[in-house]
């Protein structure tokens, strides 16, 4: 097991290097001279030269690449070009609000979509099943933007059930007051695709021989569905969950933007709007790393869910 983890971590190195090179090419070559990007903010030629020296862009490209690799390894991406705040500080302070919304969202969404998917898979082919599937297809087709705009207007602005937007200081205050509507919208958006997907996973299992055997043994339908079918369908569910995990770091950026939640996602949009390259670079690398880590975690969880899985 330990050997496997070490080998997998070792295999991440080339991919991570690739990500670094990709980001480097994007921002240092395609993006052009950062001094020109900054020129809109600072007009003084001397200052621009100064900044170029500070950023190291007057150096040859391999020195610049080395600077970037050092930044990734030390986690010190310098200061934001817009606010002069340290990039590591920005990311650290924005992570909390994002997680306050997204962790409850992920938990509720997973439990609800698994429960509902088991239910509709159990009554597969019935009117309920078809109605739920049609609702999911239609629900999926409506833009996330429409959901956010309408929900914010109707539930917060018109009915006043939730605050229209904002964010407080205390964790509980945020969770109980401000995060409720964002979580609700997140659920509406994410349950439809997950429910559809998980239903197909359960349908694959429901006709297997072991289900008939379990019935023949006289097990209750609840036990068959929740213990036997769920466990056997858990591998694709874990894959889907883990694939969505890195976006936890990125945050539901549209929701954060609409509700003025000072999270990572909103920060990304602000950074793109302001051409704040250090922030985007840092985030891209970190999120790529989180993706690889969650892939590894997913493989380890397969083993826990299904002892037949061989880790190679």
């Amino acid at each position, binding site marked *: 097991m330990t050997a496997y983890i070490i080998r997998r971590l070792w295999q991440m190195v080339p991919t991570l290097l690739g990500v670094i090179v990709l980001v480097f090419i*994007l921002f240092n070559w395609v993006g052009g001279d950062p001094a020109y990007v900054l020129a809109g903010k600072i007009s003084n030629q001397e200052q621009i030269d100064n900044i170029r020296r500070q950023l190291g862009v007057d150096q040859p490209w391999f020195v610049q690449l080395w600077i970037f690799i050092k930044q990734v390894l030390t986690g010190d991406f310098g200061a934001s070009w817009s606010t002069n705040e340290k990039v590591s500080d920005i990311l650290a302070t924005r992570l909390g609000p994002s997680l306050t919304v997204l962790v409850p969202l992920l938990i509720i969404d997973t439990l609800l979509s698994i429960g509902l998917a088991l239910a509709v898979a159990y009554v597969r082919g019935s009117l309920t099943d078809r109605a739920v599937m049609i609702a999911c*297809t239609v629900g999926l*087709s*409506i833009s996330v933007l*429409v959901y956010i705009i309408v929900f914010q*207007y109707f539930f917060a602005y018109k009915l006043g059930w939730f605050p229209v937007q904002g964010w407080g200081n205390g964790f509980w205050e945020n969770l109980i007051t401000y995060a409720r509507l964002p979580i609700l919208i997140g659920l509406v958006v994410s349950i439809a695709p997950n429910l559809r997907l998980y239903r197909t996973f359960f349908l694959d299992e429901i006709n297997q021989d072991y289900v008939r055997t379990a019935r023949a043994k006289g097990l209750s339908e609840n036990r068959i569905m929740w213990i036997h079918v769920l466990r056997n369908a858990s591998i694709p569910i874990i894959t889907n969950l883990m694939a969505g995990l890195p976006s936890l770091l990125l945050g539901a950026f549209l929701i954060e933007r609409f509700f003025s939640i000072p999270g990572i996602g909103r920060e990304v949009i602000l950074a793109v709007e302001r051409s704040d390259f250090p922030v985007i670079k840092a985030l891209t690398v970190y999120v790529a790393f989180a*993706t690889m880590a969650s892939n590894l975690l997913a493989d380890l969880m397969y083993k826990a869910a299904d002892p037949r899985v061989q880790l190679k």
Partner: protein
Amino acid sequence: MTSASMTNGSAPKAPVRIARAIPHTVSPGLWALAWKRLKCDRVGVASLVIVLLFILMMIASATGLIAKDWAKETGANYAPPSFIGADIEGGAPAAGASPSGMAAAPSSSDFKSEVVDPLADVLAEIKGEKKPAATDAAVPGADAGKSVDPLADVMADIRKDAKSAKADVVEARTATLPLGGDKWGRDVLKKTIKGSETSIFVGLAAAAVATLLGTVFGAIAGYYGKWVDDAFNWFYSVFSSIPYLLLILAVAAVLNQKGTLTIILILGLTGWTGTFRLIRGEYLKHKAREYVQAADAIGASNGSRMFRHIFPNVSHVVLVQLSIYTVLFIKAEVILSFLGFGVPVDVVSWGSMLNEAQNELILGKWWQLAAAGTAMAVLVTAFSLFTDALRDALDPKLKGLAGA
């Protein structure tokens, strides 16, 4: 032997003499069979018709047959939809009620009520003021900027000029429009049609780019194997370890230049990974098959084997991918344009309409949101249902696995 006969599979094996003796019936090809299956699928046909209607609308709008004058301010500002009737409230919500500066434009401008409207003079002035701006540059947004400009007094002389033009502005405008009007009195119906042009075109073109890249990369990686495969797989794992939307936003930040072509490139260049994975797998499977060995024996080159012999046998996968990507990219374009990273401001798209509608909703002007949202939902629903039907028709073994 042609690749077409390979697709049929069974026919060419029989000796020539026997083939003559038996009345020669060509067994229907993959596409004919798929079409037959698709025709039996009522939901599939209905969704195909809707998708085709949308594409027809897009072509008609692109060639200027319909919605050519979408930018013309034909109605009153925020003209309500005809089925509701003219706005009788007069000077409704105060401009300050909106949290956003953009929406601080005059909220009502019904001409029948103008006589009793205490704000009529101001409204007329602002309306008149728009005239020169609208004629010399059709840039929406410039007008709104002026109406909230605290330095607007400086523009007094421009307004004086404009007052003379006010008369024909007023008489050209109607109180209601079929699906309502936007802030500047432009017809929402025409905007929605024009917006479909951008959204559908971007979706289709970006999907074509992404599928093409994914197919070519996947074919090369799967066909050649060995170190080529390793190299492409490394490339794939690099691209797929960055979440898709973050990659799009990063590329958008770097390119920093708006345009339909830019957004097609952004979506296309970042979106090839899914197709790559599937096509690579298909090529790995197919390259060892007998018909490819046969092609090798008759001296077909690598390129010919890859694209003339194997490709027709995996093309159904490509087609389904193209369909899936189109839906995905239509959605992505709407979000990008909404955020202002998509098409430029003078191009209307469903995303930019939703952006305007966001502020209008607080004033109670819901029709632009409804029009853009509904048009998109109908198209995306139809396209997804069509994709499912297409997949079932092309690969009946999969039937029932996904949805339905």
